């Protein structure tokens, strides 16, 4: 009874803390400007099913795709086991689902195999990051915290899988001993090999089994609460992020309605402007971006596929699309913390542009969309870069001199070069 109450208290506390932090992230995302992503619900649903559930963009890199698939499928399916753990914990039962018979053995057996593949995959991931030191996991933005974050996640997953298998091994051995309370149920294709390393005394086995059970469930609840602080948040946000992702051709940039009003008024004095959101042109700070940009930032798991294909980054420029996303997330989180501490009106004198992302980075972008194409969860760093450029050009008139010259030429000559518009058709006079 004490155990059941303790379990209930821990579970409720964990869920409460998680929803508190989760709501903060949602609040932060809502600090962004509006963007309409409610159209074409069917196409959106299909995109989510294909890209997030189906992992369709992972296959470009087959080795990590294969390993990630095991971890993903393990995560989804082993959660069925967590449901049983929850019920057992609350009602003091043991393996409450065992009544379903053969299917139960099949399920437990599958969980064990999945747990082993998750274990192996995570171990290989650790090797790739820390021993092979793959280039994709390096870069200016990959400072101590992002590196540790990745390792913590992998180590915790390995620990959770280890105790899960150890728990089953102890359980299987107790079942063989005919221990009361340990109903004969389940199949143990993996953990049967661990039975030999366990002691044979019943009380020791019960201690190990219970110890692992508590470690497993408390570990899962603790991990849940780690998510809001971690890049691992993508396991939740990959789904809404793909659902709300851009469905238009990648080459299309948004037309700014606020500018349309002004340009129409300039060209036609009788024009009556439509209602648009007032404010500055482009983005200086994270709150000038749309909620979609901010959700993108919280979804990023820092895998670096974007940076690995970025032509600017490949050729040694400062720009890294992954850094754009991480900076955006760090900045909006900082703004959120400021609001919590000092109220909504507080200004800390900092901004996303210059304090986080430099001009050199935004001007190195070729807008080639390679980063957008590469992202396995449809994050769009290009939109953020464009918004920062819009601010630099339209609010500050601060662009590289040659860009200003090009803009001047378009204004004066209808072409980005200094040629006379009268000569535009001269090409037809030559051979």
């Amino acid at each position: 009874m004490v155990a059941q109450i303790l379990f209930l208290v821990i579970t409720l506390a964990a869920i409460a803390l998680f929803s508190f932090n989760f709501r903060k992230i949602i609040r932060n995302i809502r600090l962004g400007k509006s963007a309409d992503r409610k159209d074409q619900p069917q196409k959106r649903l299909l995109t989510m099913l294909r890209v997030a559930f189906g992992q369709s963009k992972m296959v470009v890199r087959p080795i990590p795709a294969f390993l990630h698939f095991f971890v993903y499928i393990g995560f989804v399916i082993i959660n069925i086991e967590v449901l049983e753990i929850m019920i057992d914990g609350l009602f003091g039962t043991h393996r409450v689902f065992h009544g379903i018979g053969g299917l139960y053995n099949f399920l437990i057996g599958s969980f064990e195999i999945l747990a082993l593949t998750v274990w192996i995959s995570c171990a290989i991931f650790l090797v790739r990051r820390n021993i092979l030191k793959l280039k994709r996991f390096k870069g200016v933005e990959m400072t101590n915290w992002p590196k540790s974050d990745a390792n913590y996640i992998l180590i915790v997953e390995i620990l959770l899988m280890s105790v899960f298998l150890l728990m089953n091994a102890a359980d299987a051995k107790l079942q063989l001993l005919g221990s009361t309370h340990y109903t004969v149920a389940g199949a143990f294709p993996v953990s049967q090999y661990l039975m030999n390393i366990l002691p044979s005394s019943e009380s020791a086995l019960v201690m190990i089994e219970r110890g692992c059970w508590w470690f497993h469930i408390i570990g899962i609840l603790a991990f849940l609460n780690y998510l809001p602080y971690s890049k691992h948040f993508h396991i939740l946000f990959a789904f809404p992020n793909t659902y709300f992702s851009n469905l238009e051709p990648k080459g299309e940039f948004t037309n700014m309605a606020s500018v349309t009003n002004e340009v129409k008024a300039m060209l036609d004095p009788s024009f009556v402007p439509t209602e648009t959101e007032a404010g500055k042109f482009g983005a200086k700070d994270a709150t000038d971006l749309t909620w979609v940009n901010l959700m993108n930032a919280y979804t990023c798991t820092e895998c670096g596929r974007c940076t690995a294909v970025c032509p600017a980054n490949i050729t040694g420029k400062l720009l890294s699309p992954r850094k754009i996303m991480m900076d955006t997330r760090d900045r909006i989180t900082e703004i959120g913390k400021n609001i919590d501490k000092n109220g909504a009106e507080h200004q800390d004198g900092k901004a996303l542009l210059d304090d986080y992302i430099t001009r050199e980075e935004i001007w190195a972008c070729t807008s080639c969309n390679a980063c957008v194409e590469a992202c396995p969860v449809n994050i769009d760093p290009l939109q953020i870069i464009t918004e920062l450029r819009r601010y630099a050009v339209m609010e500050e008139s601060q662009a590289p001199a040659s860009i200003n010259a090009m803009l001047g030429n378009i204004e004066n000559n209808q072409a980005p070069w200094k040629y006379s518009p009268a000569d535009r058709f001269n090409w037809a006079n030559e051979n």
Partner: protein
Amino acid sequence: MEFKVPTMAELMAAGEEPEILFWVGCAGSYDERAQKITRDICKILHHVGIKYAVLGTEEGCTGDPAKRAGNEFLFQMQAMTNIEVLNAYNIKKIVTGCPHCFNTIKNEYPGLGGTYEVIHHTQLIQDLINEGKLKAEGGESFKGKKITYHDPCYLGRGNGVYEAPRKALEVLDAQLVEMKRCKSNGLCCGAGGAQMFKEPEKGKKDINVERIDEALETNPQVIAAGCPFCMTMLSDGVKLKDKEQEVKVLDIAEITVRANGL
């Protein structure tokens, strides 16, 4: 040119309407290398007998480089001015030799009141081949030649056009080889996003050199392009590598014109 390139103003004066408007673009109008491609597109249109016209001096920059650089004002000024001209001529269908113009007119003009069917010249060439109006006969033979095609970002990733340019090359019976990074994974030439008009930020290497290194790995005789900016970047790269004698950078329109002896 051996024939006169018709303008919209002339057609309008004669009370006629073209089947398709050829949007030349700034590079196609002023850049010497791109002008050749422009004339070749006209040769193809003339050869197959499509009724077409150009805007001539009435055309102005689509606003693409201004928009990518962040100047939405200038972009929309250009766009609305162009849309006014296009709508006044009752234009329905547009072909262009520039993926940047293609993307801008196709995707960004409709929201500002300019809705047209827009195709890239490689799509036109593919259609003409499919209809049997264009073959690869009567001119230079590309049979067995090694050709590698560089995907322009705003045609490929930007708008998902990967097949048309390749189909236009398949008809040549040449040996098509893909670069390591191609199609949706293609590497930019380095000119997009208004980079064409500025010096690159400091780094280890220029993007076009990175791309040319990759293209040369395929040992091509021809690097095929479909964008005037890519043309500049790739040609500069080949020049820098001192490979101008062995490797030609040609637009798909030029290849088509040569293969058909137009």
